[in-house]
């Protein structure tokens, strides 16, 4: 920032090109370069969002047109739609378990792989592999059949004499198959943790050892505090991703949210209202509540971050 300010006079003394203003600004070139994003932003994000907000106050149906109905959609959502609350509770349960599990696995494995031993590159690739294919339909299909009644999990349990369980049909278990699937795909946060761990100076651990600190003390007093910015970043990204989970739930329950709506994730329910029964006004209202909740949660995490995120410099991440 500052060094370009120092160069200003030199630039100003050049013969002024068209569109170049006095302060070294080049509005024409700047807007030309960002114009693809700018146009797409308005056409495919901003205007649709404004429309979506407006639709939230209508009963828009793609075949029947629309009427302005005020807050009726929100009234229906909060007071009259049992499935809405089931989908909220399924999503909350999923996020509350899947996100911490994923982060714990990610950090644990990252610490295991933070060594110079031979073969670490291979292990890192192997632990990351499930995440590379994680969002695909193929893996969701695989997971569904792993937890099938005759599937892999029941076959393994059978060898220990356990009776087979219908994992995907049982209201208590179905969501856990999805939580496990999420926990299995900890590759991205793992790599980010790994990069963070490499930043921690080795001398800190050495001097702690000299002072007689054991492994747990070193982890709690050195590793965790210095890693909080990375944990913070991973937490936000994973929270948002968790709330938007769609494909896996769609494939594993065949788009139904069964059993008893216990896997009816919020994104799935918005899809069903918007594109199966075409209640697009209602679906838009739900989408805006989702946006508000994600914004609120992100704001809370940011606000509280000053209490638990440790920055070595005051520059931030």
């Amino acid at each position, binding site marked *: 920032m500052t060094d370009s300010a120092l160069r200003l006079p030199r630039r100003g003394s050049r013969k002024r090109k068209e569109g170049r203003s006095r302060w*070294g*600004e*080049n509005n024409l*070139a*700047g807007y*030309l*370069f*960002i114009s*693809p*994003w700018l146009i*797409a*932003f308005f056409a495919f*994000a901003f*205007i*649709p969002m404004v429309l*979506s*907000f407006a639709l939230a106050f209508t009963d828009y149906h*793609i075949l029947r047109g629309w009427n302005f109905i005020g807050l009726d959609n929100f009234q229906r959502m909060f007071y009259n739609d049992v499935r809405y609350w089931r989908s909220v509770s399924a999503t909350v349960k999923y996020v509350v378990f899947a996100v911490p599990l994923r982060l714990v696995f990610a950090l644990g494995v990252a610490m295991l792989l933070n060594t110079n*031993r031979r073969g670490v590159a291979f*292990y890192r*690739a*192997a*632990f*990351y*592999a*499930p*995440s*590379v*294919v*994680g*969002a*695909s*339909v*193929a*893996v969701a*299909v*695989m997971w*569904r*059949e*792993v937890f099938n009644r005759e599937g*892999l999990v029941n*076959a393994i349990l059978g060898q220990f004499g356990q009776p087979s369980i219908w994992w995907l049909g049982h209201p208590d278990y179905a969501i856990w198959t999805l939580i496990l699937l999420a926990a*299995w795909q900890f*590759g*991205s946060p793992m*790599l*980010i943790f790994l990069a963070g761990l490499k930043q921690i100076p080795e001398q800190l651990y050495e001097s702690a050892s000299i002072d007689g600190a054991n492994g747990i003390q070193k982890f709690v007093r050195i590793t965790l505090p210095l890693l909080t910015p990375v944990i913070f*970043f991973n937490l936000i990204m*994973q929270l948002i991703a968790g709330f*938007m989970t*769609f494909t896996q739930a*769609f*494939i594993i329950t*065949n788009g139904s949210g069964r059993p008893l709506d216990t896997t009816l994730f919020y994104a799935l329910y918005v*899809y069903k209202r*918007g594109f199966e029964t075409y209640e697009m006004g209602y679906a*838009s209202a739900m*989408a*805006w509540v989702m946006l508000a909740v994600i*914004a609120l949660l992100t704001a809370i995490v940011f606000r509280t971050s000053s209490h638990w995120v440790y920055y070595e410099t005051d520059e931030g991440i």
Partner: protein
Amino acid sequence: MSSAENPVSRSLPYAGSARLSPPWYQRKAVRTVLYHVFVGLATLAMLYPLLWLFGSSLKGPSEIWTRQTALIPNEIHFDNYKNGWDGFGDISFATFYKNSFFYAGVGTLLTVSASAVVAYGFARIKFRGKRIWFGLMLLTLMLPIQVQIIPQYIMFNELGWINTFYPLLLPRLGGQAFFIFMIVQFIRGIPRELDEAALIDGCGQGGIFFRIILPQLKPVIITAAIFSFYWTWEDFLTPLLYLNSPKLYTISLALRTFSDPSGATNWGEVFAMSALSLVPVFLIFVFFQRYLVQGIATTGLKG
């Protein structure tokens, strides 16, 4: 570990020679072996479901639900791949692969080239309102697409573009916030001397971008292209919304129909086609792993 354990090791039979060396479980060689046994087993557990998928794709109908835990079938059935390839409704997987390669190929090309252009604007040119636009772009990273897809669908429906690839490809003309941010970070790391010199020589911003910056962007462009290809290849929601005719199905949609529990009968074929759809992804992963790891570590992308 601590001095409290030393008396124990001194009382062991071999204590005489081992007095100053650590106990057996702390020796370097032993710890290395233990490490590899433990991490190796964990790796195997991680990869087991994927290996199981590939194993099951070669199993015959008599084995598939009876020898579930086996990774290597007694009898290898390559015909699962041959028969599965025939697809459904007279449309073979050749069509689905063609559609997927088209969507992922063109989609990636558009996304990455637009992202590079936009990133240059944000990283190197001073213009009024830049900070606001850049901030807005970063905010879109957190936006749930649910607040956009319904009006988008209505819009594309009005234009008569359902069952075409336009709704899937047009939004990519503006690049993608993730990649724009990633490339901006990369360009900021490139020294300015060369562009300053070119500017003095009368080179315009376009010339600086194409002649000086773009050639240096190769690593970050490869990283962005890989991620973009992955996300497009695996994209499910957008094709689900806009491609209703089986002739236009991408692999994701085709697999969903092909594996429908109420219709599928030959699970060997389902597993074969599922496994096959992961092959391009794994091939890229094996050859370009370095770019992926760096890309995630430096910008914290989600995977």
